[in-house]
Structure formats: structure tokens, C-alpha cells
């Protein structure tokens, strides 16, 4: 169905819902590359005004990717909770934006609403919001998950310790882990991107992590970010798998390019649950996403990259994950060109995921061919801290020597905890205090060469 809006004598017509959404999206290079952006500033605002007047019910009747050929669309429609949606079913997209910002929308009401919202509704309202709106609403959401500790409580900020090494050298990885732990990092997960996906190599890393966590009695969980098929094979061989990782996208075809489907994810999820390795909870999936993956896989169906990204969250929430994060600036400047676009996209991703009920973190990052630097990352880090982001990455000196990009350092997390008075996960904080690594105010204590974590070497 076409949508339109007239400004003075210029009548703008948008052929269908996906076109309206795309044209209403704040500018980014990936949508331009896909040929989906508004052709003028005026057309973009015309699309936003038309979108503001669109009844939310429209999203239940008009899909952006065909129902018949896309299992994510079917998932979104079939899992939609009409009861949760009922209180806002009379809203337009614009009215939803105003309501979200009102005091009537609080932590409880937003939690109850989550299953009544579809990714496209959330993507749509996001396009009408300024950065401060995205921050304010996200901050109201609280999404708490548990495995061996508790992540996402208001007032907490956690980190994934990311100790990558270009050749998966066990000692090299352990050196980065110890460095991170001694800087208070690693409560969300200790997660390695393996340089090779071979099952034997991944099993070695899993055993090494399991050994470290047991030996030092660390209240955290491990993950080796291999493909789910590799992890599934290792679960069946009784390898010590805590969290199951997978990259996911927002269309069936994108996921096919990642070598996955919902049925495969179902299978690995059930297999991992059967291991019963969590102590305080059983959230155990870990998903990474990022705007641009559908375009990169030639699988976007004419849908803008931010909407495709939000659709990936429908996949994620099917599995009550422990952690989800967008790898926002990793994909490169042809999708998000500069610091401004990366910052906007990260705030969008965090907002959309939180509103849909996901434990969202962000890999605050950039590559060397993007127009961005540490100052941009500092801005984004601070904004996401204010927005209540569940976790960020902890990479030694912000420099990932395996993946060749820049993320956030152990020090960055301490900065954010300090300026915003945030704490690590409570179980992990108790461990840091006990090991005399941090004090109760979040200050690093002096660490002597005899500290027992250093005995590992």
C-alpha cells in the first residue's frame, strides 16, 4: 500500500512500508550503497512525518520481507503477543514515541510491553527519535540475565573480556585474561574469537577457560565464538561449553549466508541447556549482530539496514540469551561511514534491543578505514553508559591484535564505572573484593607480583 505526504506543492509518495521506513531513516552510507535513502533532506522528513501518522496495527498487516519465503517474518508474526500489544494498539508510530518518553512508560510497563512490539514497530519509532530520546527510553528498560552471575541490573556495567590472539596461543590468551581480570574485566563473559574454527582447537580453548574459571573460582562464564555447528559437535563430545555463540541477521537469507537457520539454533540451544552448567540461571546463548550484514550478504530485500538489524532481535529473543551485542563499527565505512553514523547506529541498536526485551551490550568499535577515532569511541562509550548498556568489550589497550580493529579497553570500562558510579555484576564484584583487585569504590588496588592470578605464569 502506498503512503504519501505533501510539503507545499511537492507530493511525496512511498510505494510500500519498507520504502517508507528506508526513506525515513537518518542518513548512513550502507543505505546509500543499497540505493534506499531519501533523495533529499525534505523527502526524509516527509517520510518521517508520514511514518509518524502510521497506525501501529499496520505492522501486523503489512510485512517488509515476504511471509512465505522468510522464516524470520513468520517468527515475528507468530510470536507477536496480542495481549501485551492491546494497551497501545490504538497508537500511531508518533504516539508511541511520545508515550515512550512520558512518565507513564516506566521499567515495569516497558517490560510488560516487550512481547507486544515487533522489530519493525521498534525500528519505525526509532527513526523518529533523536539520540537523547533513544538514551532516555533505553535507560528505563532493565533486562537482567543469569548464568553464573547476574548481568544487567540498573547501576551495573559489565564487560566481555576479549583476549584474542592471532594464532590462538594458549599462553598468549591467558596473559591477556590475567591482565583483564586484574583490571576488573570479564563479568559478562570471557570470550575468545578463535583464529581457526577447527573443533580440536576450539575444544582446547574451552578446556583452558574452564580450567581458569574453576581454578580461580571466578563467578563468570566462558565462550569460544566458533560457529554453532562446531559448538554443537563439541557439546555432543561433552566439551565444557558455557555460552553458545552465533552471529545472526534479520532475514532468512542473511542467516543462510551465516550457515544457520532457526531449526539449527533450536537444536544447539536444547543441547546446551542439557549440560546444566549455569549456577544462578540458565540464560546461555550469546548473539552478535550489526547493521549492514544483510546488505553484505545481498539479502536485504530492499529493507534498510537498521530495520534488518531490529529483525535480528526477533531471532535473539526466541532463545532468552545471556548476552547480545551489536558489533557496530566493525563492518566498515561502506555501511557506517564515520563517528557520527557509528554513534547513531549504536544508540539505535541498543534502544531497539532493550525495548524488545534483550540484554543488550555494544562492541563500541571502529576499523582503521572508518572516519572515526578514540574521541568518537569515548563519546559513544559515555552515551551508552548513560543509556544503561548491559556490557561493553574489554580488549587490552583497545587494540584487538587478531581481528585488527579497535574496541574498548579495560581502562575504558573503569572510566565509565567511575564517572557514572556503576558497578560490575554483584557476584563478580564480590570476587574482585575478595581477591583484593578492586575496592568497594571501584578503584584498582595495588597488585603485587605475588598475586595468585600471576602464579599461573
Amino acid at each position, binding site marked *: 500500500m502506498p503512503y504519501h505526504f505533501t510539503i507545499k506543492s511537492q507530493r511525496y509518495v512511498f510505494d510500500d512500508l519498507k520504502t517508507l521506513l528506508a526513506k525515513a531513516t537518518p542518513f548512513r552510507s550502507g543505505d546509500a550503497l543499497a540505493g534506499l535513502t531519501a533523495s533529499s533532506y525534505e523527502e526524509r522528513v516527509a517520510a518521517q512525518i508520514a511514518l509518524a501518522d502510521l497506525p501501529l496495527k499496520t505492522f501486523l498487516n503489512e510485512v517488509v520481507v515476504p511471509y512465505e519465503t522468510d522464516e524470520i517474518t513468520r517468527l515475528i508474526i507468530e510470536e507477536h503477543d496480542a495481549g501485551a500489544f492491546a494497551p497501545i494498539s490504538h497508537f500511531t508510530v508518533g504516539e508511541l514515541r511520545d508515550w515512550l518518553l512520558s512518565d507513564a512508560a516506566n521499567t515495569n510497563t516497558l517490560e510488560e510491553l516487550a512481547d507486544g512490539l515487533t522489530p519493525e514497530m521498534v525500528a519505525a519509532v526509532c527513526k523518529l527519535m533523536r539520540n537523547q530520546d533513544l538514551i532516555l527510553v533505553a535507560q528505563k528498560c532493565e533486562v537482567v540475565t543469569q548464568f553464573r552471575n547476574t548481568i544487567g541490573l540498573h547501576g551495573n556495567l559489565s564487560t566481555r573480556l576479549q583476549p584474542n590472539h592471532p594464532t590462538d596461543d594458549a599462553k598468549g590468551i591467558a*596473559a591477556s585474561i590475567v591482565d583483564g581480570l586484574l583490571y576488573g574485566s570479564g563479568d559478562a563473559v570471557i570470550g575468545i574469537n578463535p583464529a581457526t574454527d577447527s573443533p580440536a582447537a576450539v575444544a582446547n580453548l574451552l578446556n583452558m577457560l574452564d580450567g581458569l574459571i574453576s581454578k580461580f573460582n571466578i563467578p563468570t562464564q566462558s565462550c569460544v565464538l566458533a560457529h554453532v555447528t562446531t559448538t554443537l559437535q563439541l557439546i555432543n563430545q561433552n566439551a565444557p561449553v558455557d555460552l553458545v555463540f552465533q552471529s545472526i541477521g534479520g532475514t532468512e537469507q542473511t542467516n543462510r549466508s551465516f550457515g544457520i537457520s532457526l531449526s539449527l539454533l533450536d537444536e544447539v540451544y536444547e543441547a546446551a541447556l542439557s549440560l546444566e552448567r549455569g549456577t544462578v540461571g540458565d540464560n546461555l546463548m550469546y548473539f552478535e549482530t550489526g547493521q549492514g550484514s544483510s546488505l553484505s550478504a545481498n539479502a536485504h530485500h530492499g529493507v534498510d539496514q537498521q530495520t534488518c538489524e531490529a529483525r535480528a532481535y526477533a531471532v535473539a529473543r526466541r532463545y532468552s540469551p545471556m548476552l547480545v551485542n551489536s558489533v557496530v563499527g566493525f563492518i566498515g565505512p*561502506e555501511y557506517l*561511514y564515520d563517528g557520527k553514523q557509528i554513534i547513531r547506529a549504536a544508540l539505535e541498536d541498543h534502544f531497539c534491543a532493550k525495548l524488545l526485551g534483550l540484554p543488550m551490550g555494544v562492541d563500541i568499535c571502529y576499523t*582503521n578505514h572508518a572516519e572515526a577515532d578514540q574521541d568518537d569511541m569515548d563519546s559513544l562509550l559515555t552515551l551508552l553508559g548513560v543509556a544503561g548498556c548491559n556490557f561493553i568489550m574489554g580488549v*587490552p*589497550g*583497545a587494540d584487538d591484535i587478531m581481528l585488527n580493529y579497535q574496541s574498548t579497553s579495560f581502562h575504558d570500562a573503569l572510566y565509565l564505572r567511575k564517572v557514572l558510579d556503576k558497578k560490575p555484576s554483584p557476584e563478580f564484584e564480590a570476587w574482585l573484593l575478595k581477591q583484593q583487585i578492586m575496592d568497594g569504590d571501584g578503584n*584498582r588496588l595495588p597488585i*603485587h607480583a605475588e*598475586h595468585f592470578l600471576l602464579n599461573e605464569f
Partner: protein
Amino acid sequence: MSLYIPKHTTVEQDEWQSLKAFTAARIALGRTGVAIPLKEALQFKLAHAHARDAVYAALQEKELMQALQLFHLPIFSLCSKANGRHEYLQRPDLGRQLSEPSIKQLTGKKPNGDIALILADGLSATAINNHALRLLQLLIPLLQQANFLLTPISIVQQGRVAIGDEIGSLLQAKIALVLIGERPGLSSPDSMGAYITFQPTVGLTDESRNCISNIRPEGLNYHAAAMKIFYFINQSLRLKISGVNLKDEMDLLT
């Protein structure tokens, strides 16, 4: 009221410097408050500056063309459809296509060669400026001794890997070998990649190629890289494939 200002540094060193022996990661950086000490922060900035300069570096075309004379092969100077670096970075599709004048240069030539040698700036012209010639000095004699015929050498500005498909196809080569600057990392601003594509044709994607990455003295050195490329070219011509189905079994031979 008195203000305490220490006479010496406020930087606290980490006691685990010895762990640096196990990894090139930036560990044991120390701290002042919760911040990274300035010395380390400036080292990081310098590494980023090198990477940024590499992204915006230009091919030293004149010097390259002069130096490449020693191979006695014709040389084409080509460019893609991307106008300048900003467009190149945002439009990878344009970096994969030859400009009209470049197509004209190659059309109607009567090449007879097995292997099209292509040098493209990619994301680090510095990599090509530093390493292409020295790699070719080892590789070209190997190819000539094996009686392979080489087409003219193409030097491409604002090029992506897939531009080799169009060049190789216009030159009717059996194999396109693209040497290209890789995305710079903080510790590797001049890493060069080599891509081998059998029967280059417009429209091929990455699974049709074999890639040899991280060519630079601190990574895969010139000799090892030349041997590896030579191996892949031999195997590719023999089996008439390239890409995911052409496995690297070189180590099994030695």
C-alpha cells in the same frame, strides 16, 4: 589548605611486565587513576596515525613503473570507477569496476598470457609501495622458469580485489593474480594480500579465490609468500579451479 602534588610520576606500573613475552596485545599498560598512561596512549595514537596514513596513501606509480621495467613486460596504468578515496571507501561496487578509459586501454590488445599480474592499492597503497616489487622479484622468475606466459602488468588506482576479474577477462588470462593493500591494523599498516582467481570473469565472488594474507617482512615473508603463490598458481592451472575447493596442501608436499 594544602594541595598535594607529588614530585614524581603518578603512573603506577603493572607488576606483570613479564607476561608481555607471551603476546603482542597491549597488556600491563599501567595506569594513572583509571586512565591509560600518556606514554602508552601516544603509542596507540601513533599506530593509528600510521594506519590512517596508509588508507589515504597513493600508489607511487611513477617509481613503480620505472622499477617494474626490469621484467620487460608491458605495463598498464589503470583506475577504477571510484573517484577519490572518499567515494572508494563508501562505494566498494565502484572499486570493483574499471573506468571507461581503462577498459579502452585493455580492449583490442592481443594478449597471449596465462597469468595476469595486477597491483591494486586497496586499503593500503603503502603495502604495494613497500612490498609489491620485492615479492615480484622472487615470483616472476619462478613463473618464467615454469614456462608460464605473463600478460602485461596492470597497476590499478582505487581498486578492490574483484577488479582483477574484469582485467583478467579482458586480457583473456587463465589466472588473475591480484596483489593488494589489506585493511591496515594498528600493528600492520602495510600488510599486502595476494588473490588468485582461475578463469577470471566479472561477477565472481570471494569463494572463487584463494587468498594469501599478511605479506610483509614481519608477517609472511617475501620468499614464503612467493612460494605459496607459485604453489597455488600451479595447482589452480592443473586442477582448473580456484577458491574454496582448492585446498592448501603445500605443507603435505614438504
